């Protein structure tokens, strides 16, 4: 499967990845990223950059894990690992918003949607594009890139 690889040492904390993710998943009419409403919770990013105690950037991106804890924790069937692509997909319509998956993600990647607290906001590999995910295309510093990995 393809995975977004992370090289934290290259991260500059610019959040280009987050803006690209917001643009890719924006809920309003698509347009150039200049029209992206950065303050609208409906446009929130699936990835984020954390700092450790030494102020080093640590990018947090869904791993689409081989053994996805979020899927195992899902009692509605909304969270599924696609056996073909390897991506962990979330079906917002099925989600019962119990948030067991939020609790179970060992890295704290996934979260309830900020606007309604009723479904999960997570990486979908920008599947509508087919190309590399938007965050990877937007990264200027080489901190994230796509690689084919064995599962």
């Amino acid at each position, binding site marked *: 499967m393809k995975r977004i690889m992370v090289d934290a040492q290259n991260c*500059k*904390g610019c959040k280009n990845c987050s803006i690209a993710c917001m643009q890719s998943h924006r809920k309003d009419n698509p347009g150039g990223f200049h029209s992206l409403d950065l303050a609208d919770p409906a446009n929130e990013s699936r990835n984020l950059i954390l700092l450790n105690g030494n102020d080093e*950037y640590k990018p947090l991106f869904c791993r689409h894990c081989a053994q996805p804890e979020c899927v195992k924790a899902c009692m509605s069937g909304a969270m599924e690992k696609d056996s073909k692509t390897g991506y962990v997909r979330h079906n917002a319509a099925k989600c019962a918003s119990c948030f067991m998956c939020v609790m179970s993600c060992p890295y704290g990647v996934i979260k309830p949607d900020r606007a309604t607290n009723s479904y999960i906001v997570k990486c979908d590999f920008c599947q509508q594009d087919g190309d590399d995910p938007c965050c990877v295309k937007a990264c200027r510093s080489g901190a994230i890139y796509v690689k084919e990995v064995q599962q």
Partner: protein
Amino acid sequence: MKFSCSSCTSADKKMECFVADLSVETSFHRVESQEVKCGFGAQGVCCRLCSNGPCRITPNSPRGICGANSDQIVVRNFLRAVAAGSGCYIHVVENTARNLKNTAQAKGQLKGLAALERLANILGIGGDDAYQKAINIADAILADLYKPAFEPMELVEKLAYAPRYKRWEELGILPHGAKSEVFNGVVKTSTNLNSDPVEMLLHCLRLGISTGLYGLQLTNFLNDILLGEPEIRMAPVGLRVINPDYINIMITGHQHSIFAHLQDMLTQPDVVEKAKAAGAKGFKLVGCTCVGQDLQLRGAHYTEVFDGHAGNNYISEAVLATGGIDAVLSEFNCTLPGIETVCDQLQIKQICLDSIAKKANAQLMQFDFAQRDKISNDIIDAIIDAYKTRRGNIKMNLLPDHGNDQTLTGVSETSLKSFLGDTWQPLIELIAAGQIKGLAGVVGCSNLTAGGHDVLTVELTKELIAKDILVLSAGCSSGGIENCGLMMPEAAELAGPKLKAVCKQLGIPPVLNFGPCLAIGRLEIVAAEVAEALGVDIPQLPLVVSAPQWLEEQALADGAFALALGLPLHLGLPPFITGSNVAVQVLCEDMKSLTGGQVLINADAAESAKMLDEIIIQKRKALNLPTEA
């Protein structure tokens, strides 16, 4: 159960916990969500000067599309910031000079006639009477400010310490018209103009000189003439100064002279009667940010209306959140946008007196000397209305045990010298004997990112005094240091044994409070006068400056002055320059041979203090003063 703060830490623990429990959002609360900073921005290598941008420098893209490299991008951004900061202070001195001139023309009260005489002597300006002298001084200053870019300012040589003036002349950095220097700074940094980082850094020094001599030193002089000179006394500080029995007006900004008329009106019997009719005992001004420090500094002249200084820039939201404030009068910067939502929630009237710093929520009542009676009356009526509407509706959340009652204030170049017996000799002797190892100006703002609110400022100050270095403070740094009790005589206990003995003998704290950031100009006068008494140049003095928690562009212009004076300048956080090797080399190394100054950047209090201490020891050695092993 221990309630930890959902907000950033503060050196002031009472404040930290007070803010954490507030139901209004403050700057403290927003720190966490802004924790991850863009590394390109932090290093100053993001350029938005043209539509090809933003361009950012990486190993794979070492130049912007136009070809600008990291040095050019960084230094352009830096000069823009210094020019803007200088512009702020030049605006302040311009308004202050106009206010002095208008007051003198109207034969209004000049409370600091001794200061007038001193300044007249320094500048060599005469006049038939005090009013005419004041008018002539104001005119000379305004004329200099308005000079074109090709004409040097005339008062620079009179204001500057002679050896410094000579050096500036050699370096070609004597400032021309102060406003024109700001203008040129902006023009040089526009798209595809100046690409010489060294030339632009020298321009920063030029802006530093006009900022320091005019924006800082002359503003102080003019305010002292108009509003009275600082007198050393004890005063209360912190949220305790808010007395809910009064109609309370929080003031923010940097232009004391704009408040001169209102300040006097508020104690007029008919105005006090209005307050009483509304159910209050009268009016009180509650100091916040630098203009609060200015009022505190001259507080001896109006004890009736000014209750004390509540805190620095990042305390303003907390001051409002006490519920005890009925109106905010703002006239300049350090008026945080964040106070607007707090004012909305707590029905606090916002009035802005200077359109340059118009706040979105505020009613603009532009100060106009000719209309001063009407404006002051309108302000008073608007505030009484706000008082009547909100009191009873809004819950009080006071913090009467915050701060202290015994902060030593009113220190200026004049009051301090007078305290020492009208001569710097006692101070020089204490320094020479090593009882005071050296002097450190801990100045500038407060920010929330160098360890937290006032954390580095207070920790560094503690480290310095423990090394027998006398600290002189001016700016929002003073607000933090005073609320943490280091300006009380009892703080002598925290000083090293020698400084402690000096403090105890003189009954002073180990940190002397010069007040607002404008008073950085006063510290520099002290430095020049002490250097003169010793017959040395300023860079030779065992004197260092630190702006540990510098915040704003204004602080960068101040810093440029310190560098022009040849002083070692410590900053807690880098001013968005580390992306440029040239900028770092010039500011941190080459500056030593240019002006004698240098920039040191370190966010750790102990390490920073050690670096500054070593510099002081070196300077003592060079002067053949005793140093400990």
